[in-house]
């Protein structure tokens, strides 16, 4: 069942590998960015509608969620809702992530490994707190779903997503082949999810204003997640938002405390 949200969102995404915020390209190449807490704090100051943390090596290295990072983020007193994903494999871990300050959690490996735990997390925390993550590619008219841990991609099974509609609130669709590529997002991915009764968050190669605007115009798209491209210029979130003023996106704003211009 699709959640009806009044405003569409621009989600600032922070990919974390080995404790560092990184730029990620196609799920196989990475460049360092800095300390995750600095990147997150910055997205909060810029007025992102939501911040998505993806700790990409926690599940594959069986490290569990990055609780120490969540504790650091809690101390920042963020104003922006936080989504955390990475290493959650049990109900207790999911609950603890929320307890440490995340507003929602997202799950990827668990969708492959044990959907029953996802269902129980949904019962415990509420469906609104659960986002399903699906790295996908469009290949000759077929959508393939990546299991990033063993790097295998398999076609989606018929009816598989029906289970999700009662369990997760949104699906985060990642174009993993084009992740980090300028204007790389493959629109064909969206075409294959058009009948899914879930709100969609799109991520992977979304850098181009007109393309983002067009994608956001789809009624099933609730949000666009942007990662690498937010790190190249000052006020990137505000710049994206400014392009959509008067549309159904929260307006951009600029913090002011010690103005040099008004200090006359």
């Amino acid at each position, binding site marked *: 069942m699709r959640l009806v949200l009044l405003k569409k969102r621009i989600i600032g995404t922070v990919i974390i590998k080995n404790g560092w915020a990184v730029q990620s390209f196609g799920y196989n190449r990475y*460049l*360092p960015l800095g*300390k995750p807490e*600095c990147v997150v704090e*910055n997205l909060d100051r810029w007025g992102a509608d939501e911040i998505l943390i993806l700790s990409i090596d926690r599940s594959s290295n069986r490290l569990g969620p990055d609780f120490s990072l969540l504790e650091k983020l809690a101390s920042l007193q963020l104003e922006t809702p936080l989504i955390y994903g990475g290493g959650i494999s049990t109900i207790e871990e999911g609950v603890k992530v929320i307890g440490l300050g995340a507003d929602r959690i997202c799950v990827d490996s668990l969708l492959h490994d044990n959907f029953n735990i996802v269902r129980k997390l949904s019962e415990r925390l509420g469906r609104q707190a659960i986002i399903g993550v699906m790295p996908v590619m469009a290949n000759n008219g077929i959508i393939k779903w990546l299991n990033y841990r063993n790097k295998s991609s398999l076609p989606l099974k018929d009816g598989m997503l029906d289970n999700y509609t009662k369990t997760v609130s949104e699906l985060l669709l990642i174009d993993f082949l084009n992740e980090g590529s300028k204007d790389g997002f493959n629109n064909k991915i969206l075409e294959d999810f058009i009948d899914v009764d879930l709100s969609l968050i799109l991520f992977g190669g979304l850098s181009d204003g007109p393309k983002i605007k067009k994608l956001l115009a789809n009624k099933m798209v609730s949000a666009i997640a942007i990662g690498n491209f937010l790190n190249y*210029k*000052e006020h990137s979130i505000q710049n994206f938002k400014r392009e959509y003023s008067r549309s159904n996106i929260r307006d951009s704003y600029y913090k*002011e405390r*010690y103005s040099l211009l008004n200090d006359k």
Partner: protein
Amino acid sequence: MINNINFCKRCLYSEAHPLGLILDSEGICSGCRIHEEKDKLDWSERWDKLEKLVEPYRSISGEQYDCIVPVSGAQDSHFILHLIKNKLKLNPLLVTYNKYFNTPLGIKNLVNLRIKFDCDILYQNINPKSVRKITKSTLHQFGSIYWPILAGQTVFPVQTAVRYKVPLIIWGAHQGLEQVGMFSHEHEVEMTRRYRKDHDLMGYEADDLLSVFNTLSEEDIWQYRYPDDKDLNEIGVRGIYLGNYVRWDPKAQHELMIDEYDYKTASFRRTFDKYDFVDCFNYMDLHDLLKLYKQGYSKVTDHASREIRFGRITRDQGLTLVKNYEQKPPEYLDLFQKWLGINQKELQFIINQHRNLSFWKHQYPDKWVFNGLSSMNQGQKAEGVSKDLFLESSTLEDKIGKKYIVFGKGV
């Protein structure tokens, strides 16, 4: 002790680099991979992009500056102005932050720069009392004597852009891109407050200091505050990096400036590079020693890695240079002690607190054993590099002597 630190197979950096560094499946680091772009990109095309980028910022009336350019008496400033004045034909307002640890040679270079390029310049002199208070505090807490300098150098140009309503700031190279490959040149990364806080300021902006130190007050830190987002947006301030549009090679650039503008160089005790940082008594001295204490490597590793990437020395030669230089004692501690008002024992006690026990073993009261990154890095002892690799034309003290050259409010 840290075990299993992975090193780049090409340069001397490891995954322990404080800016973050990523090794790929071939064992080559992100910095070396991005460096490869220097020989792949069409730099003529990229220069054209730069020319188009700066065009809207030219003052039509000629009564306003076209851009703000941060400068010092060292580190690429001559080359930056050469590009801006001579190649781009822009009219810049120069800004410089008085770091107080100025060498006579650095002041000479700065004077030379102003005269040869015929530019207006603004100096920022923060009152010395506050600078000393902050330096003392950050030395104790962070093991850093450079916080005020890095904060001042990175904020004064931005404040000036807002106050003078000159939106374009032009910097030289982006340190994160050059060292660890944080960005591709094609990302055309620009100045951000996030990068400044994260990397230049070790995660602490001016206001953060107030919550860390009860020794500091509002009147000490306000000059280091980054302008508000609203102000930046209203003026349209942006800071671009020339290194995204020019094949950045500090050694070649300095040598061009030596030939064309009489840029002066000097040797250092703790590195083989003779061109960078000749404006400061402390950067390659106490500041560099603190880097070795905290990070397990020092600036000579940065210099060697850069020269390896440009193919001017081999990896083994680089590692040999690092081992030759990094344990050399600093030369100018007495100047700093006098400036800060502490004695040698007090200073040594403070800086010992910042030795990273992953890299240092305390054997007995006055004996520390180094187990830093160069001792873990694999390589063969190599022949030395040519003495002519870097050329010196003067000394830090020039003809003036061993003392900080202060101006403005400095005492």
